[in-house]
């Protein structure tokens, strides 16, 4: 790191601006969450986070997060392998579609699933006959969560795989290794840390998704309420201690994610030399 020797005053003015900006916009909200969560003492905090509905909401959130991580990991591995190791027509279109879900408003993400599986869809009678309810039920929540976190893992893997190139895989293929062996022994060690970071990021976003899930949830307490929706419910009922206590759980996860990010990035850099 090269540091500037000149402009000492400018340096400290800019640093001060940054620190004030970050303190007000990023750190103050975190302090506020904790102080409100604990304002009625530790026992009411514990009561709020172990409330029956809070636990059920947390379990549903974990379930949706689990599915999002599994599906997006499978997708991310295949998609990034496909995009980085082969040349084919339509590759650019493919990557545009993969990145699309992050630019779409979460409300619109919810809307498209309602249009696909809702009452006016031709799929509805078929699914209804089979007794499957997707929108305003748990499957809808899971689908919405997968959608909003869709490119998170492939986006972490693609730059690493592109930088690594295809020479090693080609050599292994010429020596007769099959696809799985090549992936396991050659590609995987390169992308290990990026994959782990992608999973962490995907899990964090999946846990916190609000807009899309809010459209597709039936808002049934204990059944289709995820943790962020449960927080909204408490907040609108003026139970601020409860809302911020539940928020603090998600906040702790967010901080763990940030710490993991720094660790994983360092690991990745070190191994790449």
């Amino acid at each position, binding site marked *: 790191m090269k540091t500037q020797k000149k402009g000492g005053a*400018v340096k400290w003015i800019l640093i001060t601006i940054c620190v004030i900006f970050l303190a007000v916009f990023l750190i103050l909200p975190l302090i506020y969450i904790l102080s409100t969560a604990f304002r009625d003492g530790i026992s009411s905090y514990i009561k709020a986070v172990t409330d029956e509905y809070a636990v059920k909401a947390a379990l549903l959130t974990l379930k949706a997060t689990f599915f999002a991580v599994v599906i997006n990991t499978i997708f991310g591995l295949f998609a990034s392998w496909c995009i980085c190791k082969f040349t084919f027509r339509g590759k650019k279109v493919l990557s545009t*579609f993969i990145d699309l879900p992050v*630019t*779409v408003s979460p409300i619109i993400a919810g809307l498209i699933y309602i249009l696909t599986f809702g009452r*006016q869809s031709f799929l509805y009678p078929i699914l209804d006959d089979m007794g499957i309810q997707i929108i305003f039920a748990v499957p809808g929540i899971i689908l919405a969560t997968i959608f909003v976190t869709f490119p998170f893992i492939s986006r972490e893997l693609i730059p690493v795989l592109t930088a690594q190139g295809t020479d090693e895989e080609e050599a292994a293929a010429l020596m007769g290794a*099959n*696809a799985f062996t*090549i992936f396991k022994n050659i590609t995987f060690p390169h992308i290990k840390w990026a994959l782990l970071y992608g999973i962490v990021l995907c899990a964090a976003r999946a846990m916190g998704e609000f807009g899309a899930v809010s459209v597709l949830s039936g808002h049934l307490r204990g059944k289709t309420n995820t943790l*962020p929706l449960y927080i909204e419910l408490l907040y609108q009922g003026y139970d601020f201690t409860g809302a911020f206590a539940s928020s603090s759980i998600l906040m702790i996860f967010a901080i763990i994610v940030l710490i993991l990010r720094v660790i994983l990035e360092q690991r990745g850099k070190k191994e790449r030399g």
Partner: protein
Amino acid sequence: MRRKKSRSVIPGFGISLGVTLTILSLIVLIPLCSLVVFSAKLSFSDFIRAVTGARVLSSYYVSISTALIASLINAVMGLILAWVLVRYDFPGKRLVDGIIELPFALPTAVAGISLTHLTTTNGWVGSFFYNIFGIKIAYTRIGITAALVFIGIPFVVRAVQPVLEKVDHECEEAAMLLGADPGTTFRKVIFPEILPAMISGFTLAFARSIGEYGSVVFIAGNTPYKTEIAPLMIMAQLQEYDYASATSIALVMLVIAFLILSVNAFLQSMAARRVSGLA
């Protein structure tokens, strides 16, 4: 045939493309198609009525104006943050670098309720602004803008930071030796190089901010014609099961997002041409 097309000795093209396309279709393409199919069924007059209602028009205005102001603030602050992180060493730098991505990791609803409580007229920050300047933040457009600044800041920093790291020190030193002061060096040498990254970060933050819902809906107060955002209008129509109006408003928003991203793509290709033309 597969081999011929991929022209690669690496096996596994067929299966990886197959799995990729299957999951992509199920999660993204088919639902998006149903949006297209459903909007084809809308009558033109209904569409116009749904998207030009006075309340809907003012919600577009609120969404676009607050997103624009917030993204401009983020472009400037993002540049300063990236500059400080790349060029200076100071205690706590690692912490600053790590916390920049908090808005990606913190659930939007959690950010929304805490920013709202901080900025009401008796909140920690809000009372300060209200008592000294008489400015209300929560439940006004200023509040919406503040929430969008929170959401958008990592986009600009993460776009500018890697480019700034690669800026050649030699050009800068040459400019200095030729007698340019630090301000001129920045304007003439460094700024043109990082401008494309800054624009890209700005447009990403802008596109994201227009569609943002979770963090804004609490702080906005949602007063009709004043602080209702466009995603909230879609939500309101959905709650009345008026899917036609919801889809119409959504289509307009998708077109706006698409335009923003296209302008960015165009500017990026111009910038790329300019750089390669010089070199």
